[in-house]
């Protein structure tokens, strides 16, 4: 499994006359944490959306990863306002777990994210960071081969962020999942990534791929 | 008869039951229902072996619907509806007239004849429908230019009366029994002319125009001649009774489901023009009435002038 690549070839996407991707190619490592950085508005979220099949790309012969089972931590939290925290999470699990397993997992993850006391709260009663943590828990608890994270840790304080990142690393070691991780925080990327991809330009291209061992913060910042 | 045999067969299992032949008779709320009120209330046995059901339909539309669905065996309908039913279902024939015209020209103003309507606002019901056509015909034949009259139409007398009571209108053609109600509420209302009398003059008719007509399903009439004869006789009696005992007619009518206030009914009988005339004495009148309607709008008689087959007369 270790050497398999997720290969995206000849991807095209434009909005009206605004060409975002033009014959875009990229390869991600399977079962690794692939970190994507790049200027705001360059097309990172669009890339994730195309890969996950949410947004249609313009190429004919393009295969999405939909069938693998995807967890997605969206850039906006996308919680359903009329469901409380618990319901928002259970909503996506729809018979994926047995009842007791589900309850235990839910408890564990909410606890880990430090939001166990908000289990019965409706989204409008939550702070930005708590909403985001619900978004994270929902994605992590959902059984999937691929986890897509679009700036997952924004609005979360550094302590909670560190706890969650540690746990994430631990989970990924146990459960072998492929991660695509978008962030603007280079430290975050350095902490968690196996590989870092720098995107940029218009139409967007891969400006550089760096292995975590060989990375230096300033180099990345310059590349962006 | 045939039915009796089948009835006997059926009753083998239940020897005591005598299954009567069911007859459905419908009349619309208002004067026609008053005409049958004695029959419907007392339910006398018309003829052995017949079980008669009377139903009072609240609006002439629901009545015509049931007629078009050929539900009643006998029905009292507006005369033009008799022609429409004949033309469209070819199963109903006219057996006689139940009431002659009961529309009156009334006003709070000081006028005496039709020709004084020129230039006035005049209320009337049902634009281009039979009352309107009758009025227009009479006026035209009297040489009055109807375009010079400012007719104000509403759908039915129940909308016309409030307008007269509240002085929104001063002059109108109003039918009984609404007229009696109107006179209760507005004492200034005077009756100027009877439309039926006007018709008599212009159409050279003795009776006036037939307003409500009794129709009978042709095959029913054929197979049950005795019953029909007896029934028409009883109906005639019932109408005479209503005309004579003006103090009870209202109560009777109320009990069979007529919605007009009993006192008003009693008062209206005097001008209601209810009378039973057998069709054989009315053929001329029907022909000329239908001709005039047809000339105005063929739809009002069902598209074509009915032929002589519409009249239920023994050859």
């Amino acid at each position, binding site marked *: 499994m270790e050497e398999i690549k997720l290969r995206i070839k000849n991807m095209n996407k434009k909005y009206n006359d605004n060409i975002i991707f033009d014959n875009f190619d990229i390869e991600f490592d399977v079962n690794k944490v692939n970190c994507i950085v790049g200027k705001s508005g360059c097309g990172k979220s669009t890339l994730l959306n195309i890969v996950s099949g949410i947004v249609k790309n313009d190429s004919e012969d393009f295969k999405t990863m939909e069938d693998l089972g995807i967890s997605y931590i969206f850039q906006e939290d996308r919680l359903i306002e009329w469901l409380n925290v618990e319901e928002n999470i259970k909503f996506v699990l729809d018979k994926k777990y047995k009842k007791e397993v589900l309850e235990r997992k839910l408890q564990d993850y909410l606890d880990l994210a430090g939001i166990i006391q908000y289990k019965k709260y409706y989204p409008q009663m939550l702070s930005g960071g708590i909403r985001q943590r619900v978004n994270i828990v929902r994605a992590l608890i959902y059984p999937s081969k691929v986890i897509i994270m679009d700036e997952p840790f924004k609005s979360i304080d550094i302590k909670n962020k560190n706890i969650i990142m540690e746990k994430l690393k631990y989970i990924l070691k146990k459960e072998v999942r492929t991660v695509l991780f978008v962030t603007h925080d280079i430290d975050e990327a350095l902490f968690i990534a196996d590989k870092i991809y720098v995107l940029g330009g218009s139409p967007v291209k891969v400006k550089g791929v760096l292995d975590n061992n060989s990375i230096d913060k300033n180099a990345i910042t310059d590349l962006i | 008869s045939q039915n009796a045999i089948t009835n006997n067969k059926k009753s083998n299992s239940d020897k005591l039951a005598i299954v009567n032949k069911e007859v459905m008779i419908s009349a619309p709320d208002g004067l026609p229902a008053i005409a049958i009120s004695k029959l419907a209330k007392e339910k006398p046995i018309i003829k052995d072996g017949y079980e008669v059901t009377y139903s009072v*339909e609240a609006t002439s539309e629901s009545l015509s619907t049931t007629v078009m669905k050929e539900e009643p065996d006998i029905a009292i309908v507006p005369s033009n509806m008799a022609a429409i039913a004949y033309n469209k279902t070819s199963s109903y024939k006219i057996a006689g007239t139940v009431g002659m015209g009961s529309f009156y020209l009334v006003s709070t103003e000081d006028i005496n004849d039709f020709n004084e309507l020129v230039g006035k606002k005049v209320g009337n019901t049902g634009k281009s429908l039979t009352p309107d056509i009758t009025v227009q015909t009479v006026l035209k034949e009297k040489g009055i230019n109807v375009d010079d009259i400012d007719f104000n139409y509403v759908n039915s007398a129940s909308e016309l009366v409030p307008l007269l009571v509240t002085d929104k209108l001063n002059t109108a053609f109003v039918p009984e029994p609404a007229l009696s109600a109107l006179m209760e509420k507005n004492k200034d209302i005077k009756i100027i002319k009877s439309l039926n009398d006007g018709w008599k003059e212009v159409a050279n008719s003795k009776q006036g125009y037939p307003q409500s007509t009794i129709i009978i399903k042709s095959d029913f009439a054929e197979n049950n001649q005795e019953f029909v004869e007896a029934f028409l006789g009883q109906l005639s009696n019932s109408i005479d009774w209503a005309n004579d005992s003006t103090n009870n007619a209202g109560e009777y009518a109320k009990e069979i489901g007529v919605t007009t206030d009993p006192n008003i009914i009693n008062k209206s009988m005097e001008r209601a023009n209810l009378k039973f005339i057998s069709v054989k004495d009315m053929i001329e009148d029907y022909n000329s009435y239908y001709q005039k309607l047809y000339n105005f709008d063929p739809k009002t008689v069902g598209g074509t002038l009915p032929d002589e087959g519409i009249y239920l007369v023994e050859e």
Partner: protein
Amino acid sequence: MKEFTLLKSRGSRSDKLEVALSCVILLFLWQIIAWKINNEIYLPTIGQVLSSILEIIKADKFYMDIILSIGRCIFSFIIALILSMIFGIVAYLSRGFRNFLRPINALASSIPTMVLVVLALIWFDKDNAPFIVGIAIVFPILYDSVLGAITNIDKNILEMAKLYNISLRGKILNIYLPAIKLRLASILLSSFSLALKVIIAGEVHGQPNYGIGTRIQIEKVNFNTSGIFAWIVIILIISVILDVVQKVMLRRSFIWKR
């Protein structure tokens, strides 16, 4: 819990006071104008209407009339509601079905009430006619609302649901129905009143044995304005009661609102 209801003011004590005040003012105005006009046909006085109401209530058929009319109304409204939800959701999911429904819906919403009554009388019998008419008039409005509600659901949420492979059932229960409920809540009262109105119109024409419409027609034929007003007041009271019932049923639905 004041902060979690649909309109912040709902059910608060001062609201009730204000509504009551408004009623009093209106009644007062009514009475003054009625005295001025002094013509029962235009506008009966409150006293006249009250005595008409008493008379109506004392009639032995009264409860049957009320119950049957309300029954028809509730029944036809609920059927229209269920149909509009099912059709609305299916129409949303299938473009073909939506297009197929368009002419039918255009038809249903264009047929004038009285024509519909007549047709219903021809095709069905007179006890069912008001009922059919009620459905035919209310359905298009509810259907449009349902379709509008689903169409306006945040696309982000739907993408999320699609991504997490939520079953159709899950989507309907957790997304479509709540969105529909939220939307319908605002027109529920007025469309229910419409149903009641239409049912009564159907009764006036179709004249079933029992029904408010049947009775109103009698008042109309006898030009009894105070009787007509009495019925308006009775219908109003019924509407208000049904409104309260509805609100109680709906209140729980909006606790998520701040």
